[in-house]
């Protein structure tokens, strides 16, 4: 028989292990993201990972200088020599004293030599780099962003009080941020642009739909957060120098109070009541499938679906606009948007047709898809079930599909129409068609062929224009 003491000890050890495991899991789950430094120069913009030693952040000096010019380093266990272009530097492991261009100076913390890699504290960069580069550097140390020379990109933000309102951001150089949307927010993250803050980091606009924006820089990146009370989307123009953030609905102050339901982006229930006429701005919503981290199918060694869909969607927009139809692009950049958000954005703009774009390496030509939904959706008073929202628009979708099929066949492009379980087609309260582009033969490079894409885009647009009146009537 075990003694009560032994049992108690075992229980205590067990509890101890549980506490230890819980603590470890908490520590692991709260692990901070890797520290980085961003370096911007006229030659290259790049980021490097930092290492922490003795409470200081360190970076490899060779890695910093390598993209900027010819650099060579050699050393033994205690001395490390580096030549950048024609400038010589000498460092000693574990010491602060260093020599560049024959002049000695002190680093703010010890130089470290790890496996032949020379590490300098990042706090030394503002004094160390000018000695090698021969010019000034600006260092935003808190945000770990280093500007070599005069490379800063400035921007202005201007509210345009049209209906719907838009926020126009003008940049002094082209930018390509990653963009993510979430209810009430549009987030742009600039990792490779030497963007500098405007006069104030919190911008406010006298507008209820887009009331404010904020600038924040951290861990080698800049985040520009636009707040909105309606779904927001971004449109690029002027070769990437202008980003226009547009609200998907008209200003709330002009909308009746009953509109609240129609601007809801929460999935689950879609309003079946008609949307006020002033919201009917776009004839077509074109949705390039995938985007951001969601790459879609691998179509070749270097080719991913999200890039083909975006290129094709842009051509389709051009073709539709040239035929006098207004078009809203769900994404015009490499951004990640959830399927429910895509459907919400399309539904609140109440288009006559929604077209989502996909691409595949298998198959022959173009495949057109309509939603696979039951014939009659469940009814909840004035609402439609989210998963069956498309059911009332099946005839409109089939009409558009048949018309596009005829146009593609007329141009002798192989085409096949199918129903498909392809979201968010079943969540759309308008005619909705999916277009999957695939090569006519086994040559997948045709997917990126401007001529082929143009031919297909032109046929799809022509097919839509042919049934324009029918789609308008159903809308």
């Amino acid at each position, binding site marked *: 028989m075990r003694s009560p003491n032994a049992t108690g000890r075992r229980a205590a050890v067990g509890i101890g292990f549980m506490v230890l495991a819980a603590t470890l899991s908490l520590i692991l789950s709260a692990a901070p993201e890797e520290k980085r430094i961003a370096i911007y120069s006229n030659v290259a913009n790049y980021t490097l990972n930092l290492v922490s030693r003795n409470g200081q952040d360190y970076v490899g000096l060779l890695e910093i200088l390598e993209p900027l010019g010819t650099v060579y380093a050699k050393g033994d266990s205690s001395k490390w020599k580096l030549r950048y272009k024609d400038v010589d530097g000498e460092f000693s492991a574990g010491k602060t004293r260093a020599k560049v261009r024959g002049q000695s100076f002190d680093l703010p913390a010890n130089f470290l030599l790890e496996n032949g890699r020379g590490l300098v504290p990042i706090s030394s960069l503002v004094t160390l780099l000018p000695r090698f580069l021969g010019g000034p550097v600006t260092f935003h140390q808190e945000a770990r962003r280093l500007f070599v020379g005069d490379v800063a990109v400035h921007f202005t933000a201007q509210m345009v009080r049209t209906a719907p309102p838009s926020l126009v951001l003008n940049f002094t150089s082209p930018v390509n941020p990653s963009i993510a949307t979430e209810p009430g927010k549009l987030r742009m993250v600039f990792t490779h642009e030497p963007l500098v803050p405007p006069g104030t980091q919190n911008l406010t606009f006298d507008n209820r739909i887009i009331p404010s924006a904020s600038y924040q820089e951290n861990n080698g990146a800049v985040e520009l957060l636009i707040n909105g009370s309606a779904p927001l989307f971004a449109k690029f123009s002027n070769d990437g120098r202008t980003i226009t953030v547009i609200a998907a609905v008209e200003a709330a102050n002009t909308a009746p109070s009953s509109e609240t339901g129609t601007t809801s982006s929460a999935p689950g229930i879609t309003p079946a009541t008609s949307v006020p006429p002033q919201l009917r701005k776009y004839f077509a919503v074109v949705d390039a499938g*995938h985007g951001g981290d*969601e790459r*879609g*199918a*691998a179509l070749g060694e270097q080719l991913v*679906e999200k890039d083909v869909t975006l290129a094709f969607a842009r051509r389709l927009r051009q073709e539709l606009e040239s035929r006098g139809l207004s078009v809203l692009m769900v994404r015009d950049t490499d951004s990640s948007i959830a*399927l429910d958000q895509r459907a919400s954005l399309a539904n609140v703009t109440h288009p006559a047709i929604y077209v989502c774009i*996909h691409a*595949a*390496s*298998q*198959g*022959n030509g173009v*495949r057109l*898809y309509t939603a*696979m939904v*039951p014939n009659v959706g469940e009814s909840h008073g004035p609402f439609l079930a989210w*998963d069956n929202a498309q059911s009332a628009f099946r005839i409109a979708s089939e009409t558009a599909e048949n018309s596009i099929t005829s146009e593609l066949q007329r141009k002798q492009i192989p085409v*096949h*129409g*199918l*129903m*498909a*379980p*392809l*979201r968010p087609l*079943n969540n759309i309260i308008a005619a909705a068609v*999916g277009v*999957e582009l*695939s090569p006519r033969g086994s040559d997948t490079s045709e997917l990126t062929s401007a001529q082929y894409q143009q031919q297909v885009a032109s046929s799809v647009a022509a097919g839509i224009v042919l049934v324009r009146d029918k789609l308008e009537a159903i809308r």
Partner: protein
Amino acid sequence: MIPRHLIIGVALMLAAALGMSLYVWHMRSTATYSTPAAVDARPVPAPVSGPSEQVTLWVAYDVPGNVRPQGARIPLPSGRQERAQELLRALIGLYLKKDSSHPLGAGSEIREVYLVDPGLAVIDTNAAFADGHRSGVLVEELTVASVVQTLASNIPGINRVRILVDGKTRDSLAGHADLSVSYDVGQVNQVVQQMQGP
């Protein structure tokens, strides 16, 4: 006078009887106090090697992009649920062959099939089935149509089919085909007809 050899014989017999009694007593005690061996109470799976039956597998073809019926003789157990499992395993087996008309990722498996009344079949696939699946609207739809059509055409009474991955709901098979809903057998049948082309 009793002969000496008789006395010795009787004594030996008594000793043997006593020894055997002691041994039996010992064996009885052991049998009483020893814990009975653990019994595996789990149900025994139905034998897969039942009588071979003629079935129709709806096999997907990447080229030209359709699903076609193909007769096969496979051993099937008697239970509905087990039959459904073996049917789909036979179908997946075709796709895992080297010269498959619609290759699936290595290690793809059907873990279980549950027949839930009324008319709902839940197919639980393993992670390799979805993780290793090629991405594309058609290629994913071919898999779904093939699986649903095979099940519905061989097991009477199935109206809807739900596909899970590792026992959980997944948004899509490989980025396109929706797995968050149940498939209506009638609609899948319509898709299969559409796939045959005009």
